[in-house]
């Protein structure tokens, strides 16, 4: 065997990874430099999410958990920004944020720098929105905040007393909130809120997770425990509905072309495998 050259099927079946990755990088870069403007459909889950926020009556209070890490920011950040813009555009919705992720407060700052609530929407920190900080313990933190928020933390994320902020008037526990939203890269968080807030207090709950986590959250949505499960990859769709195209929509062309490349790779791999098998080269 050592004397025989490799057949075309062997070569196709063993394309070096440097070639695969190199072509992938080229396909990533080209639509970034020359956008194609390919269409983006809006899915039912994103519409349901959008409509849930649209249906919030004036004066509603929303709890948002910025529970994602830096690793998930490229995917979930644009979704978080789009939803915040929607909430601020709607007006008269109080948004109280906390983090069950250790990087949550930094990422919230990043999102606020992108949204610019005061400049663009006239929203005021402590009146229309606030961040009460990172609380350690994931489900323990969720249960603690849901049972008695003021007993768990008396300061915002910068260490200032919550008593000075009008937005916190009357906020006691989970019953004080009309909607719970969670952005997370961890199953502990997305499922934890179902166990600690929806099951215990009946809080309406929506979550946006990494696309790879959506399958594990589908049973909750199907059972009615979560109103809408979206992935951060659908941020472009949300931006389209909200009317603020940004980072999310930019990725659409890239995702289409890279997925086309994936289909080509899968096809080549299978053609090579089946060709080798039927030409008697292997099993």
């Amino acid at each position, binding site marked *: 065997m050592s004397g025989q050259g490799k057949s075309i099927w062997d070569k196709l079946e063993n394309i070096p990874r440097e070639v695969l990755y190199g072509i992938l990088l080229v396909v990533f870069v080209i639509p970034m430099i020359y956008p194609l403007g390919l269409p983006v459909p809006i899915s039912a889950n994103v519409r349901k999410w959008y409509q849930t926020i649209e249906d919030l009556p004036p004066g509603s209070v929303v709890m948002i958990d910025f529970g994602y890490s830096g690793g998930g920011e490229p995917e979930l950040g644009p979704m978080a920004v789009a939803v915040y813009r929607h909430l601020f555009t709607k007006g008269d919705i109080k948004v109280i944020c906390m983090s069950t992720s250790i990087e949550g407060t930094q990422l919230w700052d990043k999102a606020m720098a992108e949204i610019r609530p005061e400049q663009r929407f006239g929203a005021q920190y402590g009146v229309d929105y606030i961040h009460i900080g990172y609380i350690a313990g994931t489900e323990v933190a969720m249960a603690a905040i849901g049972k008695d928020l003021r*007993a768990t933390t008396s300061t915002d994320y910068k260490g200032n007393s919550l008593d000075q902020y009008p937005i916190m008037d009357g906020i006691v526990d989970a019953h004080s909130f009309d909607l719970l939203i969670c952005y997370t890269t961890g199953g502990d968080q997305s499922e934890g809120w179902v166990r600690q807030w929806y099951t*215990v207090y009946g809080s309406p709950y929506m979550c946006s997770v990494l696309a790879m986590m959506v399958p594990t959250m589908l049973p909750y949505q199907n059972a009615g425990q979560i109103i809408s499960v979206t992935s951060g990859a659908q941020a472009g769709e949300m931006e389209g509905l909200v009317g603020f195209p940004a980072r999310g929509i930019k990725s659409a062309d890239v995702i289409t072309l890279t997925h086309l490349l994936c289909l080509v790779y899968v096809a080549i791999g299978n053609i090579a495998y089946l060709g080798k098998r039927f030409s008697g080269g292997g099993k």
Partner: protein
Amino acid sequence: MELSLVIQIWMAALFTMFIYSIAFRDNMLFKFAEYTFVGAAAGHSMVYGVDNIRKVGWNNLIGGNYFYILAFLLGILLYSRYHPQYFWVSRYPLSIMMGLGIGLSMRAVVTAEFIVQIKSTAAIQLIGVTDPVKMVSNIIFIILVVSTVYFFIFTFPKAHEGSLGVIPKIARYGMMAAFAYSFANTVLSRYNMIFGRLDFLYSEWIPLPGAIIALPLVLILLIYVMLPPEKRPWPKKE
């Protein structure tokens, strides 16, 4: 643009390229970035650990809940696990955390992940469904739920043999489809993340002065460190 912001973007860009080089070969620049990441993660955890102790513990303590001093003592006792003789003392604070976790999860798991899921499956309509596609989908749904539960509960060999063996086989096929869906979604997730980093390099780093010249130089440097020492063109070994 402020100098501090320029330096920040440069550092972030260099770290990004160092980490991506692992896709091709392990090298010293990737290792440098990797160890920076591990150190930063540990340091960041320490920072927020101290912040939470102050926020939840200290504020409650000076607010009049003096028995919270016990929580501080128990927290310090957690570190007795490193003592060769008194490591068992750390079991006390650990058992409080464990009891809390078990209590919080068990009170809700029975409802959220058992009763509600079974109710939802039992509520699936089979009689009176006029759409044939919907009818077939509902039947497949119920069969897959029941067979998957069977697969995980009845693990002894006889339950997977003979005529009963068709049930776990159906479960496996259903789970394969679910895992394929997860796999494809994972590809989508990771590609979105790659796009995020490349978009950062393209829209925030490249426009900076000198970046467009630095890019090929950094790539050449990365190729150089990825080569085995004996194949590097410089320094020449005698």
